[in-house]
């Protein structure tokens, strides 16, 4: 499932709403990304996250398809927020559901790699006296 939303999310609720559908799930690896108070040694006040929404859905679906070819997965979840986010707010959740740990771990990391590389989101980071558009480095 892919969700692109302004709202915050509850990791327990999001994961258990999928987990409860499959009693064969033994392993869930999840990654949560947050707005940090500091980037490149500069104090961050807030960020504005811009998204090309239709394309983001399409690219994230492709990434999930790729992950399903490489690993034995029962389900996957990606939630990415956009809009104004302040320090400590959640930005992204990726969760991989599988029978065994290796599949969920590796696929979760793989999805995050591709999300950072190909998903059309842009962070505009606001510091004390200026702002800056970020570029992901892999």
């Amino acid at each position: 499932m892919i969700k692109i939303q302004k709202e915050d999310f509850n990791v327990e609720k999001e994961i258990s709403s999928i987990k409860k559908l499959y009693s064969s799930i033994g392993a869930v690896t999840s990654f949560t990304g947050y707005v940090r108070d500091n980037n490149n040694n500069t104090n961050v006040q807030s960020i504005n996250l811009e998204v090309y929404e239709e394309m983001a859905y399409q690219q994230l679906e492709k990434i999930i398809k790729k992950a399903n070819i490489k690993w034995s997965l029962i389900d996957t979840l990606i939630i990415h927020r956009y809009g104004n986010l302040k320090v400590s707010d959640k930005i992204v959740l990726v969760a991989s559901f599988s029978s065994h740990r290796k599949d969920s771990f590796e696929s979760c990391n793989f999805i995050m790699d591709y999300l950072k590389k190909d998903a059309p989101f842009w962070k505009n980071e606001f510091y004390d006296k200026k702002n800056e558009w970020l570029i992901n480095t892999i």
Partner: protein
Amino acid sequence: MKIKYFAWIRELTKNDEEYIDSNEIQNLNNLKVFLLTKYPNLQKHFDQEILRFAVNQEYVVENVNLKKDDEIALFPPVSGG
């Protein structure tokens, strides 16, 4: 065709999307020439080859043909996640 701009490209074009109807724009290279004429500030970013194009929500690097109802997006390197 619809052209969409994101992040600092949007700030530079001062426009988040626009519709272009020109028989001279048959492919992506034609569109690039059109955009550079309209937005000369884009030139240095084109030269640095950091910009990314998407046609109908798919990344495009080659010079593809464009149709009237295509949606083309121009944007800087992404920074999600």
